[in-house]
């Protein structure tokens, strides 16, 4: 029998990573920009938060500084892309690659354990010792508040302009919006959320590791694709809700896959295959429909030819000509 206690950990992780997925949603869906910076800003957030906590800074302040660091990383990718005209994918890869060294510098080593350190979770547990599932509630509250703030932001004048920057840049420029500034701001905001999520995950799992960023963007994409596939809507409110739900479903899927005997080392390929399948599905569906249709057309045409509906005269002439020649 599956108890809630058993899956609550997966839900917690889903919520913590869901904040990262909201960042991926901003770049991938709102700006329509495949941003790989995420793989660098997620561990950046963890590195900044862990280093600050170890050096005695309040975990809450550490989270905020981590977020600011992530915003800088995103802004750098935006700068590379808009001002220096480097292709979006490459701009993200360059920032991510550079951040690997930065993260090592910040941490001073490859891994910082936080086991005996105060974290946002331990502090709140001391304040509210009697609340059950406190960790889950804290993460739920954070994720939902961030989701609602993001919804509200995307409905402001700047938010609308940011959405239009991804949808129809010529149009929104012709309405007086600096789309380059919007792209930089959007990437910055997105990576701020990603780094914040990295800071939370480090405190949740009890360590920051320089390698913890690998594949983050794919996990984010998986969450966005699963979530917006389940909750199909044009409305931002539904899409962001879908992203959080998608992130939780993703974690639960992993939980069950592991329970069914999947090796933890195989998780990444499972995630990649999942995203490939989701992205390829529309194309495969179309191809399949076309194939079936052309098979129908072929058999119909064969019948028309056999019944002498079309093609008889010319064919007879051809045969006669070739015989006389």
């Amino acid at each position, binding site marked *: 029998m599956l108890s809630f206690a058993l899956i609550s950990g997966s839900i917690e992780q889903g919520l913590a990573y869901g904040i990262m997925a909201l960042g991926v949603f901003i770049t991938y869906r709102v700006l329509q920009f495949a941003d790989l910076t995420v793989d660098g800003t997620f561990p950046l957030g963890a590195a900044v938060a862990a280093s600050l906590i170890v050096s005695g800074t309040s975990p809450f302040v550490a989270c905020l500084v981590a977020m600011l660091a992530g915003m800088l990383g995103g802004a750098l990718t935006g700068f590379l892309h808009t001002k220096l005209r480097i292709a979006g994918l490459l701009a993200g890869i360059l920032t991510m690659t550079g951040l690997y060294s930065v993260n090592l510098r910040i941490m001073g080593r490859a891994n910082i354990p936080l086991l005996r350190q105060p974290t946002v979770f331990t502090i709140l547990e001391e304040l509210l010792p009697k609340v059950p599932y406190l960790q889950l509630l804290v993460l739920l509250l954070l994720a939902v508040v961030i989701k609602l703030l993001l919804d509200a932001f995307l409905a402001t*004048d*700047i938010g609308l302009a940011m959405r*239009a920057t991804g949808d129809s840049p010529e149009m*929104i420029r012709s309405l*007086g*919006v600096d789309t380059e500034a919007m792209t930089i701001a959007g990437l910055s905001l997105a990576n701020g959320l990603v780094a914040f999520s990295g800071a939370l995950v480090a405190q949740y799992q009890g360590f920051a590791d320089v390698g913890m960023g690998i594949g983050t963007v794919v996990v984010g994409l998986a969450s966005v694709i699963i979530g917006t596939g389940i909750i199909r809507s044009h409305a931002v409110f539904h899409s962001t809700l879908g992203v959080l739900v998608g992130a939780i479903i993703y974690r639960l899927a992993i939980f069950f896959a592991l329970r069914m005997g999947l090796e933890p080392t195989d998780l990444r390929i499972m995630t990649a295959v999942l995203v490939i399948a989701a992205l390829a599905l529309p194309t495969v569906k179309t191809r399949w429909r076309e194939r079936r249709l052309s098979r129908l057309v072929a058999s119909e045409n064969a019948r028309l030819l056999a019944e002498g509906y079309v093609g008889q005269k010319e064919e007879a002439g051809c045969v006669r000509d070739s015989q006389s020649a």
Partner: protein
Amino acid sequence: MLEIANLHKTFVVGGVAPRGALAGVDLKVLPGEFVTIIGSNGAGKSTLLNAIAGVFPVDRGIILLDNEDITLQPEHKRAAYIGRVFQNPLQGTAASMTIEENLAMAMRRGQRRGLKRGLTARSRKQIKESLAVLGLGLEDRLQCPVGLLSGGQRQALALVMATLVRPRLLLLDEHTAALDPTTAEQIILLTQRIVSQEGLTTLMVTHSLDQALRLGDRTIMMHEGQIVLSVSGPERAQMGVEDLLEEFRKLRGVQVTDDSLLLTTSA
């Protein structure tokens, strides 16, 4: 009033000896004047409109709008007072956003955008009113994503968006070329109505010689990056499509058998 002097623009593409897309354009458009622009494919019509809108920097020349030098202003700055409608209906509206969101963005043209809500009860009311005059029933579909509308509806919306905040200059680049004839005519009627009601200074590129003569106050013809003909007043009123073709032959000394040379089929 729009004043353009000695405007030059050359696109350098991969080392090929470049030819001037704009080779010294001089143009003066009076306040409230509606100018139609014709010319063969590649004559530089779109380049002229894009140069005025600031899509790219020009090589030489000056652009004054209401006595303000906008030659070096970035595109998004001058967009504060220049309204545009593009040929492609997909380009002029944001498909994934709702009708009211699109219009809300248009209402902010030229203003600072901040963290105020884009849509309020008041702006919704204003949006409804400006859509109701179209007679397309769009005012009852405010929450509908624009992507679900037809090309004609989207182009009507784009026209409203370009003029919602009164622009000092309206630029229309073959904005009916992608539509079927009936829809195109409806958009032309709408264009005429909005331009005359608001008294907008307007430049309209069209591939229809008939349309060029029928609409507006003046017709100019472009050829190889220059304005080669400008007719207005009684002279223009008496002109027919045949006369325009004749003018073209005289001016360029080339043999034009039919109007195919003047018909623009693509952007």
